[in-house]
């Protein structure tokens, strides 16, 4: 259930409406009285310094584990774009105890799943197994994190595969637009790393680069483990201390990050492609998750373009004018200020109209206060939908991880409720003025430029 394209299954159901985009990050508000008093979970420091967040759930005999490791793109030394992702993806491709095939065979045989991957601030590792297979699962998880061998053959294979995948992504106009947008907004900052940057670095990548990065970043003090499921505290603490015992702290500092470029006035990038729709990305640098205005920005963005069919952009561009199937805005609020982005697809000929309407809506939310009803509706959704944000084990694990990453505290639901409750129309207008910059936008348009005839 997502708004991603359904590539291949012809009879996969078509979702006519778009999904309400996850607003700002993972968390939303919590109002259910019955649950509000219960803590989300427990925070425990393990023997090796790793932080465990535990939510016991005994209804189903299964265990879901999510790990976040401070080993994403922002941890990579300058000049090595893509190193974080390839390192993470090679963890499961062979250890001192198992070949890549053995790892896959073992996890598949118990009907579980094990995966590792890169990210911007964090790399991730996740495991899901039946309760009865918890030892096998933890043995595999700890093995891939502690004992990867980074065999040269596996590196070569992964480089080849990644280069082919990066090439394939050029088929997708929304990815092409997103790449150009990230580069224009973030420049040399790691959030601006593009597929092309990665593709030009990978042929130069050495095994030593990977080993050095792995040794510096894959350490217990850089790791958070969230466990949700059918285990007791005593049991899981003992198991984690056993399986992760050999892991040692190192305390390597993070590299300094290049600042994003100053954008003085709106920049328009036109990319010509033989497509039926213009893919438009508009925006600029936004806020970090730890910005105290986060909650006011969340409410403001809901009204502007984050709130699905309750948002102004959707109402104007899709419902009233029929110009797009999907239009949404969002703030990627991470460790560092991420992007504020409005993303839209419309037929080439409508690109000018859609850009004009978007700019109009951004200016309107800055110039006029939102209505009482809009504010009340936004707050009602953001508070009332909280139970849905923790209705599966994976969602709870994700939420626990966010709470630790952004120092939100396990009483976050209660705090968050009052933060949202306190937002006023003035707050919404204030943050709209402060964090939206319609005259200093990056506008990327991937389109058949002859048909789009951009005025911008």
């Amino acid at each position, binding site marked *: *259930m997502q708004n*991603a*394209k*359904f*590539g*291949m*299954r*012809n*009879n*996969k*159901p*078509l*979702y*006519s*409406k778009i*999904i309400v985009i996850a607003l700002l990050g993972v968390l939303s508000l919590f109002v*259910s009285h019955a*649950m509000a008093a219960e803590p989300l979970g427990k925070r425990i420091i393990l023997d090796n310094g790793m932080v465990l967040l535990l939510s016991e759930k005994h209804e*189903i005999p*299964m265990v879901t584990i999510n790990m976040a490791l401070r080993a994403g793109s922002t941890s990579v030394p300058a000049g090595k774009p893509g190193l974080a992702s390839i390192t993470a993806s090679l963890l499961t491709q062979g250890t001192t105890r198992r070949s890549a*095939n053995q790892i*896959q*065979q073992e*996890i*598949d*045989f118990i*009907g*579980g*799943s094990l995966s590792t991957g890169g990210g911007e601030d964090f790399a991730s590792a996740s495991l899901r197994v039946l309760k009865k297979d918890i030892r096998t699962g933890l043995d595999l998880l700890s093995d891939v994190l502690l004992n990867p061998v980074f065999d040269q053959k596996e590196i070569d294979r992964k480089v*080849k*595969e990644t280069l*082919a*995948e990066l090439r*394939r992504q050029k*088929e997708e106009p929304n990815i092409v637009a997103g790449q150009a947008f990230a580069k224009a907004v973030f420049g040399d900052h790691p959030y601006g790393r593009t597929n092309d940057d990665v593709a030009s670095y990978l042929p130069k990548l050495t095994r030593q680069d990977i080993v050095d990065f792995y040794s510096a970043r894959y350490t217990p003090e850089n790791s958070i483990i969230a466990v949700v499921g059918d285990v007791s505290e005593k049991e899981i603490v003992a198991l984690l201390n056993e399986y992760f015992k050999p892991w040692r702290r190192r305390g390597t500092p993070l590299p300094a990050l290049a600042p994003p470029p100053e954008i003085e006035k709106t920049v328009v990038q036109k990319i010509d*492609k033989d*497509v*039926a*729709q213009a893919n438009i990305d508009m925006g600029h640098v936004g806020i970090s998750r730890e910005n105290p205005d986060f909650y006011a920005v969340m409410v403001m963005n809901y009204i502007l373009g984050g709130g699905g*069919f*309750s948002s102004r952009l959707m*109402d104007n561009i*899709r*419902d009233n*004018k*029929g*110009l*797009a*199937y999907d239009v949404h805005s969002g703030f990627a609020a991470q460790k560092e200020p991420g992007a504020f982005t409005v993303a839209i*697809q*419309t*037929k080439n000929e409508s690109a000018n109209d859609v850009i004009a309407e978007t700019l109009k809506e951004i200016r309107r939310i800055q110039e006029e206060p939102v209505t009482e009803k809009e504010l009340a509706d936004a707050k*009602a*959704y953001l508070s*009332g*939908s909280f*139970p*849905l944000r*923790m*209705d599966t084990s994976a969602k709870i694990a994700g939420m626990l991880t966010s709470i630790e990453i952004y120092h939100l505290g396990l009483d976050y639901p209660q705090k968050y409720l009052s933060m949202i409750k306190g937002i006023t129309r003035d707050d919404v207008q204030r943050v709209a003025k402060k964090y939206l910059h319609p005259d200093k936008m990056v506008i990327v348009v991937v389109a058949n430029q002859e048909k789009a005839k951009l005025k911008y």
Partner: protein
Amino acid sequence: MKRMKRLSLIVLILLLSASASGFAQNLNVTERVLPNGLKVLLKEEHKAPVVTFQVWYKVGSRNECLGKTGLSHMLEHMMFKGTKKYGPKTFSQTVQRNGGNDNAFTSHDYTAYFESFAADRIAISLDLESDRMQNLLLDPKDFQSERDVVKEERRMRTEDDPVSAMVEQMMSVAFSAHPYQWPVIGWMSDIGNFTRDDLVRYYRTYYEPNNATIVVVGDFDTKKLLAQIEKSFGKIPRGPEVPKVTAVEPKHLGERRVIVKRPAELPAVFAGYNAPTIANPDAYALDVLQGILSSGKSSRLYKSLVYEKQIALYAGGDYDDVSKDPNLFYVYAGVMPGKTTDEVEKALYDEIDRLKNDPVADEELQKAKNQVEASFIMGQDSNFYQAMLLGQYESVASWKLLEKYVDNIRAVTKEDVMRVAKEYFTADNRTVGILVPVKQ
């Protein structure tokens, strides 16, 4: 390969709950049929204070005809455009104001609508869904602009996605007499020529209580909810029987093949074999076979084409068995730069032939079964997918098939796997689609 990762039927199937200990999957579903023919399936889940409410109509592109393809999906869009009581734009806004999420989807065989909420908001669904089952406005002005939205949707999903465009063509060749030949979203020219009258007629014909199933999974009391459903939906009059779809795809007399040239970076190869539905007992062996071919990175297609031979960027197999009429079992792969569609196609058939010629190893068979069982248990984690499965099965056959699903999978032998491979995976029985990239 995000876009190639399917919510496989297997996975979907597996997402449904069963008792953890194993056999005798009592799904704890309460079934009632109201006097007006509306079927109600309720399953209590008290793990979290949330509920998902779904209404499934047994209508999809299968019920359409050439010239009006995509009508089911167009109507689905219009179902959000209001009734007399709830004007335009208010449906989703009402749901969101109550902290809920809503959406809908259309397939070949069904159209479904759903809301997910905190458990105490379920009355909203009863009110909204009973209202739009009978009182849809279908405002002419809204219809005009929504038709444009659907065209944009088609541009996004199909026109600008080379693999989707190829699969659409492949399906149009795989079925000659049966409506599965046209895409759920419809051909562009048909979308442009729908009239409001088409929609009114379609709505009156198919949106009837006797052609619908309500599925609710979550934190509620069955007795109380059943009474509420009877109150909200019971007064809607039964409609006439819906027209039957009688089309039958004839036996194919030889391989069918389609080439699609599109601006793209990499070629892709799909081969679809005509295969039976879940109503046929062979479906269980084919599900196991699907797992052997495609479930996890130790499965045959990934291991052979992607990992060992390195001729494919992605590879897998998919089986559309939760289908009203027979559909396809297909294998597919994306071609690595420097490799050819010919060698990739041959490698796919080599794996198919192995299944026909050599019995699968005991451990491999057991692995596929373990994957099914584990996923079945893990599926209890999500109310939405439990409801989704009940709705899908009920719309194409019967939800009761799910109760015996794991037992039927357990009973599959390696002889069964070999037999169904030989029976269905023949060259004459397949349709091949090739995406040939052209530079723009």
